[in-house]
């Protein structure tokens, strides 16, 4: 691409919207994942007795539930990402590609 083309893409409102949306989605979900995972790890390191406490008086512990939740949330977050990307970011991206192809 020539410098002029780069310049014009960079100033294009669709491109700017795309970068804004993508950056926000990427980093907010990354942060969520880091908080979930390291929250769990730090709980294990600093307060194992919280996780060892039985759930509803049975044998199943709080930690077991938390661990399963971390797995489900990981899959859930990737699902949110794919859904949002398909719904909101891909259409924008398509428009930009078409305009570039012209």
């Amino acid at each position, binding site marked *: *691409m020539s410098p002029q083309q*780069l310049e014009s*893409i*960079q100033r294009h409102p669709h*491109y700017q919207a*795309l*970068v804004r949306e*993508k950056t926000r*989605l*990427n*980093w907010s*979900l*990354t942060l969520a*994942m*880091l908080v*979930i*995972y*390291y929250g*769990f*790890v*730090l709980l*294990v*390191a*600093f307060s*194992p*007795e919280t*996780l*060892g406490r*039985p759930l509803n008086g*049975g*044998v*199943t*512990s709080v*930690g*077991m539930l938390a*661990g*399963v939740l*971390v*797995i*489900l949330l*990981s*899959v859930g*977050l*990737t*699902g949110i*990402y*794919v859904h949002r*990307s*398909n719904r909101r970011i*891909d259409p924008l*991206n398509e428009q*930009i*590609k078409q305009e*570039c192809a012209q």
Partner: protein
Amino acid sequence: MKRLARLLVPSLLALASPSVLAAEGASRPLNWNAIGMFLLFVLFTLGVTRWAAMRTRSTRDFYTAGGGLSGLQNGLAIAGDMVSAASFLGISAMMFMTGFDGLLYSLGVLAGWPIILFLIAERLRNLGKFTFADVVAYRLAQTPVRITAAFGTLTVALMYLVAQMVGAGKLIELLFGISYLHAVMLVGVLMVCYVTFGGMLATTWVQIIKAVLLLSGSSFMAFMVLRHFGFSTEALFAGAAAVHAKGTAIMAPGGLLSNPVDAISLGLGMMFGTAGLPHILMRFFTVADAREARKSVFYATGFIGYFYLLLIVIGFGAIVMVGTDPQFRDAAGAIIGGGNMVAVHLAQTVGGSLFLGFISAVAFATILAVVAGLALSGASAVSHDLYATVVRKGQASEREEMRVSRIATLAIGVLAILLGLVFEAQNIAFLSGLVLAIAASVNFPVLFLSMFWKGLTTRGAVAGSLIGLFSAVTLVVLGPAVWVNVLKNPSAIFPYANPALFSMTLAFLGAWLFSVSDASERASQERGRYLAQFIRSMTGVGAAGASQH
């Protein structure tokens, strides 16, 4: 407990814990069910390889299966790379011995995948063609960056291969009753066959077939365990706590991650080490575009997560169904074949000797599929990064490049067999920990910075990689895994088992320092090319597409 964890943790990835397995001796009878089913798998995959060979004509076919795999296919293959024999046997063994701590380990592997998806998967597909060095070298000087990246790839691939080879030899000796020498040769020869003839297409299909077999086998085992406990997880956990020596303590953290620094370091190493494994990164070039790359990680995360949920049931089920059954214990009361065999014993309990054979064959198939991917990534670093780009400056014909990649595969195969034999009696449990630490410190920081930071220059990228390599190797050698366990010193100079927190930080700092202080003309041109790269990484305009078949 801490000592136990230290011994266990590094051995998980490669299952390369010879001390545990070797203790049992090799004189087990030939397991004909397992051998029969394994032969069936080999015949079928060789058929697939033949089919793939007919479709592998160009370098693009060889490295990336023509770039035409669907998100689901690639997702299964990625999941296959992660749910290895090591995680199936190793993590279920950890749960059998320590309960909850086994779960902690599996979470680290899983939690890396969403991050890979959010930050690097699509950019990688938009920028690269065959190897991750394509991405790092996009706007930097080809020769130094390619040499460094190829070096990083080969180091990781070879170390990982050695760990897998030794683990495979011991495991197969135990499961099938054939000798270590034959097992290692068999793995090496089949790996070379798949890769040289069938390239990425065959490698991927072997991985997909194995992933489906392993997922269905584990689903069956988990189902049978749950049925045994009346489909109540509470009954399962209560039963396990009632018979386990630790009692209800198996439902709580037992000290695996009691040191916060080690805990965070292990987490970082597993998260970002995965994002720096060359054979995993290569998978993102096998799909048509960023959209399919995105879908493949979604599927992969789903399959990996599902697999670890099954492992909880399998591991805790084994505590009751294997742990209390005297037929699985030897005269001294230890589990026959060592701790890593509990999942295999459970297979016998829930499905009889035929299913035992099936699970053994799947474990073998799993190793084959993983080593094939490793060999392919190593070969592509030699032929694409070193030969075609550095030596021939992009002037090599497709035929020449293909020939070099096949010769490289053969050389890697021979090397892997030799190293597997050399290291048979060595304690190499530290290798798998080292592999992840190196991947996280050598490959990941420069890959990340090349995509996210305009200021990265060639000098910074090379310096960052080398600093990461040097610090990761040094810290592992000075740490408990080598300094105490291998070199038999009384206490470690570097107290933490996992160096990733420190070596990754040093690699990032090094890349930053040597970039910002780079005032050369070349550096300013490299910074100037970032905009074009950024636009392509965001939009996919100009990205390499799928080839037509």
